[in-house]
């Protein structure tokens, strides 16, 4: 059991000391954070929580301070604020808190910085590429509107649409356009319209207008959130961004297919007035009718010209003219033919003369050459003859020398049997047979009386 000890503090004493430490060590501060859980009591005091990503701080703005504020518009959930005051302890609950004396929408500078960073990032990711932009339909069957269901915006838009196109279909996707969860709500609505009202759906939405009325940068912030930009970028239905503001563009304006400066302006440009379409169609119809009638007029005129033309009405005259023309042509043809004949004949005659001359020269030439040949030949034949004659004489002499009868002149004789066989040996003639003996000047016919053989 703990004995009474001067070091033991009562809760009040401890809390008091903490309060003192905080007041001394920290005291007056300016903090920045986002407001959440804001509550205003009937006493006029306002309680809220200031937070950032990792921590939170209770805050109180007493009624007396609040009335001194120039602008308490920033006292809203989700608002980024800069609050100046005293760090203190609310002893009754053992909580430390800031007693706010000054508060303002802090964000502008910081928001602008975030805006620029995100703009750069989305631009680099290609979300603003012109190539990705879709054309708006000429005549949407249904216009999807993503905005707050309360307030003037939807009312004004419907008024504009009713004026321009009295029977236009509109489907409102009600969303929160500012504060916590606004961006998510807008993105969800755009996606929902794509999923549930796409091509072929009975409530097909052909174009979406996403927007809100004017406000401060903080008010419009939802339209600068990446989640909204992505939903618009991914939308297969063309999106018109319509955030009412004067100066800068919201990021949704860059990523949307078309930007309108206000929701009413978006309603103006989402569809042309029906009357305009009707007059365009009327013009087309009139123009077509005019062109057709004009063509008919031209054809009728041509027909009339044909009907009254001299050819059809006085065909003989026309024929006479043609006949004359034929005659003329015939004459020209005749002249032409005659000229041609003369020309050809002249050429022929000139050619003949030339040819004859050439022929005569050629014949003379041939004769001369033939004469030459003939002399040569005669000479050749003559020589040849002489040579032949010499040969013949030579052979003759040879023959004379070799003639066996020549030998008879020298006293020899030739004996043959009566059958003509030459008797070379005594055996060739039998005694009693007849032999013929050839002498130089005749022949002896004798009978062999005896045969003697030489030893």
């Amino acid at each position, binding site marked *: 059991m703990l004995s009474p000890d001067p070091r033991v503090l009562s809760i009040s004493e401890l809390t008091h000391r903490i309060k003192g430490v905080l007041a001394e060590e920290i005291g007056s501060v300016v903090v920045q954070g986002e407001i959440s859980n804001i509550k205003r009591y009937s006493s006029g005091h306002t309680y809220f929580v200031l937070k950032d990503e990792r921590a939170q701080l209770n805050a109180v703005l007493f009624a007396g301070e609040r009335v001194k504020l120039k602008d308490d518009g920033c006292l809203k959930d989700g608002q980024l604020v800069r609050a100046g005051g005293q760090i203190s302890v609310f002893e009754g609950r053992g909580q430390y808190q800031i007693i706010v004396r000054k508060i303002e929408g802090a964000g502008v500078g910081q928001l602008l910085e975030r805006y620029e960073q995100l703009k750069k990032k989305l631009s680099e990711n290609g979300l603003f590429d012109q190539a990705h932009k879709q054309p708006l339909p000429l005549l949407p069957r*249904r216009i999807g509107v993503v905005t707050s269901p309360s307030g003037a915006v939807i009312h004004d838009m419907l008024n504009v649409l009713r004026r321009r196109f009295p029977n236009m279909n509109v489907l409102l*996707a*009600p969303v929160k356009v500012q504060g916590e969860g606004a961006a998510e709500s807008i993105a969800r609505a755009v996606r929902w319209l794509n999923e549930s009202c796409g091509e072929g759906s009975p409530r097909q939405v052909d174009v979406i207008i996403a927007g809100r009325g004017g406000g401060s940068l903080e008010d419009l912030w939802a339209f600068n959130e990446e989640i909204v930009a992505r939903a618009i970028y991914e939308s297969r239905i063309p999106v018109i961004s319509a955030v009412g503001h004067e100066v800068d563009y919201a990021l949704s304006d860059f990523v949307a297919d078309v930007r309108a400066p206000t929701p009413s302006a978006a309603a103006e440009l989402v569809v042309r007035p029906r009357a305009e379409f009707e007059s365009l169609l009327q013009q*087309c119809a009139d123009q*077509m009718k005019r062109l057709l009638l004009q063509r008919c007029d031209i054809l009728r005129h041509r027909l009339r010209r044909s009907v009254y033309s001299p050819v059809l009405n006085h065909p003989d005259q026309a024929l006479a003219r043609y006949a004359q023309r034929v005659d003329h042509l015939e004459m020209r043809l005749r002249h032409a033919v005659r000229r041609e004949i003369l020309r050809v004949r002249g050429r022929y005659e000139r050619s003949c003369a030339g040819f004859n001359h050439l022929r005569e020269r050629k014949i003379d030439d041939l004769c001369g050459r033939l004469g030459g040949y003939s002399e040569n030949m005669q000479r050749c034949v003559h020589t040849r003859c002489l040579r032949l004659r010499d040969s013949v004489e030579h052979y003759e002499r040879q023959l004379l020398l070799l003639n066996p009868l020549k030998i008879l002149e020298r006293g020899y004789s030739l004996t043959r049997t009566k059958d003509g066989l030459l008797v070379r040996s005594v055996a060739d003639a039998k005694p009693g047979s007849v032999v013929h003996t050839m002498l130089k000047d005749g022949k002896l016919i004798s009978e062999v009386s005896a045969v003697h053989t030489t030893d």
Partner: protein
Amino acid sequence: MSEKKKLSFEESLARLDKIVEEMESDKMELDAMISAFEEGQRLVGDCNAMLREVERKIEKVVRDGPDGGETVPLKDVE
């Protein structure tokens, strides 16, 4: 020209433009011109019908579940 598929409003307008242009060109035979004219008249009729067939339905999405949604007529702004 007989189109089996019904042309959209945009396609019809584009076709009308083309028809008028062709009729203006002076190269069309009368027969072709008459059929072009007839087609054009039909298209004008179709387009006018499309302009009128929109039923002026002003509706609002109501969400029942996290991703559910149906539409009801939007009365408070009419």
